[in-house]
Structure formats: C-alpha cells, structure tokens
C-alpha cells in the first residue's frame, strides 16, 4: 500500500525552522502587513523586514525607482525611523505574523551593526537577524562592508557577539570574488548567507541629460540579474558549509529550482511580488508538484544537486551513507 505523502518543504536555516523555503526579501515586503490582503502569509516561510539603522533616515530623493528591461533599478536609501523608534512603535506589531519574522540590520560602522543587532535580536517578535552589509544605495558606505573581506569579518564578529539567534549575512554581487567574502563571513560566525543583494546600475534620461535616479546610482533587481545570482550561489555553495538563501530575479518555480540546484537551502522573493503578489504561493505549489512528480520526499533532497564538487555538508544531511 503506497501512501501518497505531501513533499516536505520545510528547511532549517541556522537555528531558524521555516515551514516553507521561501523568504520575502528585505525592502520589498515592508513588514509583511502591507501584503497581507493579497497573499496568505501562513504559506510563506518568513518575511525579512525592511532594514533598520541606528539613527532615523529620510532616505534618498526621488525618483527612487526606474523600470528597466527585465528588471528595475531602485535607490531607496534605507529610509527608516531608527532603532529606538522602531523598537518602541513598530516591532510589537510583528508578533501577529503567521510566518517567521527576520529583522534586517544596516549600518555605517561596525559599532552601528553591533548595537542595532543586539537591540533588535533581544526582541521575541524577531526570530532571526539578517545583516544587510551590501546596500548599494547609501553614499560611500553600506556596501563597503560586503566588498571588503576584512570588514565583512569584523562586522559579522561584532554582531555575532551580541546574539545567539540565527544570523544571516547578505552579500553583494558587486565584488570580484564572492566566495572569499563568504568564507570570511562563515569564519566570523554567520549561520547563513543571503546571496545576493542588487547589482549596481544606472539609467540616464537622454532628454534631460541627467541620471534618472535621484541617487544617481541604484541597485538592479528582477530577472535581469538572475544568471548573476545563480552563479553567485553556485560559487558560494562550493566555498562554505553554512546554508544559503538564494535570491535575485526569482519569478517562477523553475527559477526557484535553479537556485536550489545551485546550492541554496531556501530562496528569497523580492521584485516578483511587485509584478504579482501571488508569486510566493505559486512557487510553493510548484515546488510541491515538482518534488511529487519526481517522487522526492523533501526539498532538501535537491539542494546543490547541479553543483559539481559541492562542499556544503549541511545540504547533504540525511543523505549520507
């Protein structure tokens, strides 16, 4: 007698258990509440909140968005009310989310990251922390951390010392050797890596003879960057043993599968939510169907399967012997 089982989509990222392997990308999903009328949040793994900094930030001047072929440029500039106001007024509301809630921390010094990480991680409403060391849209800072292996190590060590909660470090694709940065983050105590943030880009208004973004430069997202992101996941997965949250232009279940097969243990959806808020549920349904069709019991069974010379021991958990 064969019992037809629903494939298991749950994954574990560090100490964080996710019912579904789908996170909603930081800065793309507000606090989750904004999308609640349009999607069942109980059917996503978790929301990565918009990044918060030590001091309030008004963000960049407009235009902050430009639609480009197969993607979009954004330069929001980390608009947020600052950690003190955030803790006092906003964080309590996150308790009601039917999915995991991951706080995102950004900063301009090692100390910034440590202070904000400690305060945010101390709250029960926050299940894990993502360190946004790769925001491309703040003048001369921000991304500096993710582009320098030593700075990456320093900021991760400092944040690690403040909390036992799962620490996900978000890496930048705007580097020569992302694997080297990934190794530093792992050695400094990261529990997982988010791969990747947006790709730096620019668009110019040919009538006004002026860059189209208020911030001049921006971060490119959407399917335009997917092959870049898939390669980054592939390379990072060969360099570290900690799990990877793959992201960059995922719109369909096929896109998501590319990331899992390259070595991601979970995925993150950002820009696609703007096209159609049903995308996260469509992808979860598609993953179930894909696994069932191939008679695979778990999403974990396919992680890294297209990655030759795959080094990620976690991914092969339960698959050895």
């Amino acid at each position: 007698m064969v019992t037809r089982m629903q494939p298991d989509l749950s994954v574990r990222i560090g100490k964080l258990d996710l019912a579904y392997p789908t996170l909603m990308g930081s800065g793309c999903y507000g606090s989750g509440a904004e999308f609640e009328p349009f999607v069942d949040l109980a059917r996503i793994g978790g929301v990565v909140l918009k990044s918060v900094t030590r001091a309030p930030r008004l963000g960049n001047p407009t235009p902050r968005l430009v639609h480009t072929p197969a993607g979009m440029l954004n330069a929001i500039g980390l608009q947020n009310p600052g950690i003190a106001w955030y803790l006092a007024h906003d964080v309590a509301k996150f308790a009601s989310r039917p999915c995991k809630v991951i706080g995102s921390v950004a900063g301009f010094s090692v100390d910034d990251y440590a202070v904000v990480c400690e305060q945010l991680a101390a709250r029960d409403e926050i299940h894990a922390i993502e360190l946004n060391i790769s925001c491309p849209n703040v003048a001369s800072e921000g991304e500096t951390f993710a582009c320098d292996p030593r700075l990456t190590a320093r900021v991760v060590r400092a944040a690690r010392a403040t909390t036992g909660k799962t620490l996900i470090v978000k890496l930048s694709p705007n580097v020569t050797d992302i694997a080297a940065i990934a190794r530093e983050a792992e050695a400094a105590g990261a529990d997982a890596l988010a791969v990747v943030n947006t790709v730096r880009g620019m668009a110019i208004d040919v009538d006004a003879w002026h860059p189209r973004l208020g911030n001049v430069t921006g971060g490119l997202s959407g399917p335009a960057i997917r092959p870049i992101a898939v390669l980054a996941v592939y390379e990072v997965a060969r360099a570290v043993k900690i799990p990877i949250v793959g992201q960059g232009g995922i719109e369909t279940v096929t896109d998501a599968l590319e990331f899992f097969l390259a070595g991601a243990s979970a995925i993150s959806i950002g820009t696609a939510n703007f096209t159609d808020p049903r995308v996260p549920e469509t992808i979860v349904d598609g993953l179930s169907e894909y696994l069932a069709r191939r008679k695979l019991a778990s999403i974990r069974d396919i992680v890294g399967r297209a990655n030759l010379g795959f080094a990620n021991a976690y991914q092969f958990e339960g698959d050895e012997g």
Partner: protein
Amino acid sequence: MPTLSTGERVHVTKIVDRRTPAADVVVLGVRAPQLARFAKPGQFVMVVPPAGEVASVALGIYEAQGDRMSVLFFVSGKRTTELARLQEGDELTITGPLGNGFFLDDAPSEVGIVAGGVGVASVLTSAQELLKNGCRVQLYYGARTQERLVDMDLFARAGCEVHAATDDGSFGYRGVVTDLLARAARPPRLLLACGPSPMLRAVARVAAEIDIPAQLSLEETFACGVGGCWGCVVPIVRTSAQAPSFPPAVLGGSDVVNARVCKEGPVFWAHELRW
C-alpha cells in the same frame, strides 16, 4: 484568506467592455463585484502585466458601479501598449482597491475638480459621489487638444459644470487649465486635482492664492503599489495625519518626512506637501 471589509485582494476578472474614446486612449471595463463595491473615489488598482513584463501597471479607478469597474489609460509605453491589445472576454488580474482616495466626507457645497490629461481617469467617481450628495461640482478639464478632452460629455451629463482648456485652443480656453481656474467667477470652496505634476503644482499655487484647500492625487513611479518598497515617496510635514510612523524631528532637524504615495496617498493636502 479572510473576507476583508475593504475588498482588498487579488481579483481575477474578465473584460466585459472595451472602448477607445480617443486615439491611444482605452477604457477597459471588467466584472469585479468586490472591487466595484468597495472602491472609494480616488483609489487605484495595480494591474498584473501580461506575461514577460516585470512591472505591474498602476491605474486609477475610472468607474465603479454594480459589479463592474473600469480603468482608463493613455497608451504611452510598452506595458500600456500590451494592455491596449486586450479585448472583451480576456482575463485581467487586478490588485486593489489601493490607497486612500479623496477625502470627501466633509466636502463643502461647491467643489472644483481639476483634471489634466490622463488625470481624468481618477476623478469621475468623486464627481458622481459629490453630485449624489447634493454638491455643485465644477470640472476644470485641461488637455492638449479637443480630441484628448476624453469623455467630457460624461461629466456634463452627470451634472458637472464643465470648464475646458486646451493647449492648442481647439476647444474652450486656449492655455493651461489652472489659468482658467484662477479666473473662476465663483471659486469653489474645495479643490480636488489629478494630472501631471506641473499642473498639480499650479493647482497648489492657485489654491493658496485664493485661499481654498486642495487635495492633490499624485502620480509617482510605483513598484509594489501597496506600501512595501518605499519607492514612491513624497515629502510632507511631519504633523500631517498622513505622515508615516517616524520620530519627531530632532533639534535642527528637518520638519518633513517621506510618505508613500501608494499607501499614505495617493491623495495629499496641497498645504502639507513639501515637494
């Protein structure tokens, strides 16, 4: 999914009528009972784009009646060109209704509506509601040419007093519609406006000069349309009821905060904007 009292959700609709009131202007009517029922004047929807397109299209709710709502748009780019290809019977997936509409609860008895170009797409339901409540409505309608004064007769038949202006003088006043407004013999006591940014700024100026409040429906490039990405902001005073959750200004700090056009707006009071 719970039933929401606001009707907010993703609606898979069918196009039940399509008309082109002028060249490159399209009105798509869809069967969408929830949307039509809950839509408030001045709200908008996000239309899920045809396959292969990344960004959804934000469109004002043009008409909402019974189980039918419609959108009006100018064909001006790749996405609107694709939308314009759709025919009766085709499917259209819509998220909404979104944003706060115009604030009509305490409207005075004489209201002026200023519409410029495609801005007309967001003001018809406001005119209808005000007229239903016994208000007198003056429509100041500006367009490039007579042909682009789309559906002017619809407003007239609804009971609006129509004042038109065209850039080329092919109909009504030759010049910008806000000049016409500034010369109004009997100025309205409240202005509602939707149109291109230069027109809205001019409306704000005229409103300040003749000392009447004005509500402006802003247009910005949207990504999400629901408040998730903070891409479509406009600076407003922190004391505004529409200011997002943000700490009070520190000593020497700015008195403005960036509000989301899609979430806190798209309608803002002219005197609260710092743009």
